[in-house]
């Protein structure tokens, strides 16, 4: 039941004791995964064994991964540890985040797309826009995610180095959240992904921890550096940009409030909005292992220590940008929630009917009927997906009316003297 209320788009219902999902409303945010006390909602993830078919496997950990281990454990050591637990190689993604930041700057300087431009890197935000704010699709910045850019480059490099075919190399992303996984299985746009699988950080964490226990923490591997290290926390993207009037928003409630304002024609003087569905951004993803605030502290320390030295040559990235190296492949199209009815007249009638039903409901959103709110229940009844008597309050009311009527009949008959106390006989 807890999951019902956690869903920001009211996509869940409980029917026959089981949670079910209304696919057109779901934005893959993972709130239900996080909330379910019995862990009954589990995203479809990959495991190691799924990747035995590849000749060479490469792990691409989200930079969140670096924040999951105690201080003193350097990102480069973590990458080395991954190579000892079953991956043939491991590459850093933070550096790709830095390149993408430079590409965003170039785009901001040259594009006349509607402002504010919105970051497309949180798949839940992209879904939210497609489903609830189709007007804002054109505000999404058409640049590929660091995850995809890194995967593409790793494949290119490995094909060259090892003389392998693309399908022989398995590039696996270590993700902090389920939305990245769903983005791969069911992408918001039709395109080819360079990723072959996604593994939750929470799954890979214990093995990595064990490997790190035996690792040489002063291994002399080159330091991972650059502002890209800060991407997993709120404001991390904005910190990489020189652009003024760039802001960061996190948490779906706040994001939706701001999107409403943009639809109302506000915030046009803001150039760029970094958006995260999780209130603590990616370090707070539901598939992480560490407390998000501790993780955030570690990210801040990494940025303070190693952020100031860039890992990329800005001019080189600019050249690549001009060659469309970072351009989004495919287009993101609106995919709004199904309307009340395909026909607008019937839709209005259903809206009225919903209103009438809603008026009879207790309006306390108890959830006993299996819908998250009285209003969504009224809508389910109008759509024929639920029966009005599934509301316990309505049923109680019906019983009350019935018993009152019965009492009424009995009293009337008693007054007429037809029913004699103690002598239960009726005259006809």
């Amino acid at each position: 039941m807890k999951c019902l209320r956690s869903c920001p788009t009211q996509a869940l219902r409980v029917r026959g004791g089981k949670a079910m999902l209304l696919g057109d409303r779901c934005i893959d945010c993972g709130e239900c995964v996080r909330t379910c006390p019995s862990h009954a909602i589990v995203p479809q993830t990959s495991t190691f064994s799924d990747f035995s078919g590849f000749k060479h496997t490469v792990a691409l950990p989200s930079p969140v991964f670096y924040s999951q281990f105690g201080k003193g454990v350097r990102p480069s050591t973590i990458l080395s540890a991954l190579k000892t637990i079953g991956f043939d190689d491991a590459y850093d993604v933070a550096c790709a985040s830095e390149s993408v930041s430079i590409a965003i700057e170039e785009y901001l300087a040259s594009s006349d797309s509607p402002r504010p431009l919105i970051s497309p890197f949180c798949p839940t935000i992209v879904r939210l826009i497609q489903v609830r704010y189709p007007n804002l699709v054109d505000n999404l910045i058409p640049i590929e995610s660091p995850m995809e850019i890194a995967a593409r480059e790793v494949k290119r490099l490995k094909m060259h180095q090892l003389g392998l075919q693309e399908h022989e190399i398995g590039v696996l992303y270590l993700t902090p959240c389920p939305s990245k996984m769903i983005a791969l299985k069911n992408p918001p746009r039709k395109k080819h992904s360079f990723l072959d699988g996604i593994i939750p950080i929470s799954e890979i964490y214990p093995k990595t921890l064990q490997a790190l226990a035996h690792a040489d923490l002063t291994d002399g591997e080159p330091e991972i550096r650059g502002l890209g290290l800060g991407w997993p926390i709120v404001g991390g993207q904005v910190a990489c940009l020189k652009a003024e009037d760039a802001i960061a928003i996190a948490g779906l409630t706040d994001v939706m409030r701001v999107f409403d304002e943009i639809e109302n024609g506000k915030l046009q003087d803001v150039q760029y909005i970094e958006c995260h569905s999780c209130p603590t951004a990616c370090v707070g993803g539901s598939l992480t292992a560490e407390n998000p605030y501790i993780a955030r502290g570690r990210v801040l320390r990494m940025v303070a220590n190693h952020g100031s030295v860039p890992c990329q040559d800005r001019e080189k990235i600019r050249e690549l940008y001009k060659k469309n190296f970072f351009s989004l492949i495919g287009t993101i199209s609106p995919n709004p929630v199904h309307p009340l009815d395909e026909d607008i007249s019937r839709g209005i009638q259903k809206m009225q009917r919903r209103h009438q039903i809603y008026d009879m409901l207790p309006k306390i959103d108890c959830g006993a009927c299996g819908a998250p709110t009285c209003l969504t229940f009224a809508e389910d009844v109008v759509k024929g997906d639920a029966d009005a008597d599934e509301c316990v309050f309505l049923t109680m009311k019906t019983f009350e009316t019935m018993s009152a009527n019965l009492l009424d009949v009995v009293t009337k008959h008693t007054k007429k003297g037809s029913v004699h106390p103690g002598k239960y006989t009726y005259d006809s």
Partner: protein
Amino acid sequence: MAAEAGQTVCETFLIEGKEFFDAGKVSTEIKRMLKELGVQPEIVRRVAIAMYEAEMNVVMYASRATVTVVLTPKTIKIIVDDEGPGIMSVELAMQEGYSTATPRMRELGFGAGMGLPNIKKNADTFEINTAVGKGTRLEITVCIN
């Protein structure tokens, strides 16, 4: 008429003056209704902007207003009836950039003088009736189908 009545949704809202935090709530509510009916995003956007500007005008200048929304399969009509100072010159108020906002309000980012012109630009029909010292009544219609 009876068939027509069966396909009309009528909602009323109240807006209180000076309640800046609430500005935009009616707009959001109307947007939600239109999206539920599957109205084209571009039309939803126009209605949202017109309603938001009207709301801001009430919040900034009037004491309160009643908003009546009449939704039919073809149009959405919004009537904003406020108790407020009225508009001295509608002709001037309809000019882009003209505003009676105080310098302080402008410093805070309000009163760009785009409110009424913006409503007109986004509406299919727009009527304004005003009485100085009493209030202003806007009637905004947008074709939705």
